[in-house]
């Protein structure tokens, strides 16, 4: 058995349930590496997730305590667990739909309270598990199974929102930036307070297929091209900028 990070994976758990090339797998990879680099004690780690493909990242794969909750409610469950047992290192890993659509209220309130939770939002800009419906993170104009002619609404800037709500560590990276992402994850884990990392994670099956990126590599290449740092963004013209995604740390 030469699987990477095997020692963090629950005994008896085999292949992930994700589609081939799903970004959530890459994110899982990065999270485990961050935990590994910090030498975290998995017995004191609690991973909480909601419902969705992303919510399956920790459950059942991670061999700490895992709490797979209801759609949208991960942060509320996590709040209870963390408050009662502050010794737990509580990491919430879930999808953009889960955390910011149905779960948006818990997100902003948890940020406001600045409770020591590490939130990783796997943003694939769509509802993966239920078949590709529009999300509150789907860019304007993009297609989904409920916006066949393109999403008429603007997406959230999740980092901005969560920072405005009171989060004290806020960053955004793409799974195509694994080293920076791992660094950010490590910072979030060490940060005492509410930390939020938005991770762009491609969903080739539901997002790619509808938006002319059929193959996983295409989505990866697209993210590689579009994700830039704030500094890189500075020089760019408005039009160029519009299709870019600014990554980096936004708080503190």
């Amino acid at each position, binding site marked *: 058995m030469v699987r990477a990070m095997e020692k963090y994976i629950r005994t008896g758990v085999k292949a992930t*349930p*994700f*589609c*081939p090339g799903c970004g959530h797998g890459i994110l899982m990879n990065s999270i485990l590496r961050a935990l590994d680099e910090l030498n975290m004690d998995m017995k004191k780690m609690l991973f909480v997730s909601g419902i969705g*493909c992303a919510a399956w990242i920790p459950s059942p794969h991670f061999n700490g305590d895992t709490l797979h909750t209801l759609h949208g409610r991960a942060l509320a469950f996590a709040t209870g667990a963390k408050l009662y047992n502050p010794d737990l290192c509580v990491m919430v890993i879930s999808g953009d739909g889960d955390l910011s659509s149905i779960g948006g209220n818990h997100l902003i309130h948890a940020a406001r309270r600045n409770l020591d939770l590490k939130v990783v939002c796997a943003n694939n800009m769509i509802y*993966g*598990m239920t078949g590709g419906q529009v999300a509150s993170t789907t860019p304007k104009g993009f297609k989904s199974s409920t916006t066949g002619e393109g999403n008429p609404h603007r997406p959230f800037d999740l980092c901005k929102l969560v920072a405005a709500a009171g989060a004290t560590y806020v960053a955004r990276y793409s799974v195509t930036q694994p080293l920076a992402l791992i660094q950010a994850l490590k910072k979030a884990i060490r940060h005492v307070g509410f930390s939020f990392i938005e991770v762009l994670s491609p969903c080739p*099956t539901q997002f790619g297929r509808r938006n002319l990126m059929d193959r996983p590599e295409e989505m990866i290449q697209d993210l590689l091209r579009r994700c830039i740092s704030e500094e890189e963004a500075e020089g760019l013209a408005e039009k160029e900028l519009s299709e870019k995604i600014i990554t980096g740390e936004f708080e503190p």
Partner: protein
Amino acid sequence: MSEMRQVRLSGFGGQGIVLAGLLLGQAGVMEGKYVTGSNSYGAQARGSGCKSEIVFSDHPIHYPHLIIADILVAMSQGAYQTYDEEVKESGIILYDRGRVVPNMELNVKQLGVSATEISLKKLKNKQVANIVMLGALVETTGIVSPRAIRKAIALHIPKRFQALNLKAFHKGMELGKQINA
């Protein structure tokens, strides 16, 4: 109830089993039959088992699911092994050669169809193995008319893929003829 025929298409996710079932059922309805169709797939997004079951009848269908197959189509070994026993004695099994090693001890008619191979080699597209199989199915069983399938393709397949699918269907019918012959 005499004229009830039950078809099970099976394979794994991504093989277009559901689409084939849709076309088959649609064709039946277009011919004035009563049809019920149901699919099932695993919870995982891709790669797990998948089947599509279609029941045809001249009368309204009470129980809409398949009870025992008149026809089984198996596009994978797993599917074959799961369902090969659930075929009527008078029934028929079509399996994808290359993907399925048939159990020759079974007491039913079995036809091997090189659907995936033809799809890949002749049509340069692994996505239409299902339609090739459909062609063979229609040809060998006469479950619906080729015309009805063509109409169903026109209705359900996006314009740009129609030609390919029609071609695959014909390839399948040719295969069927060879087998039948």
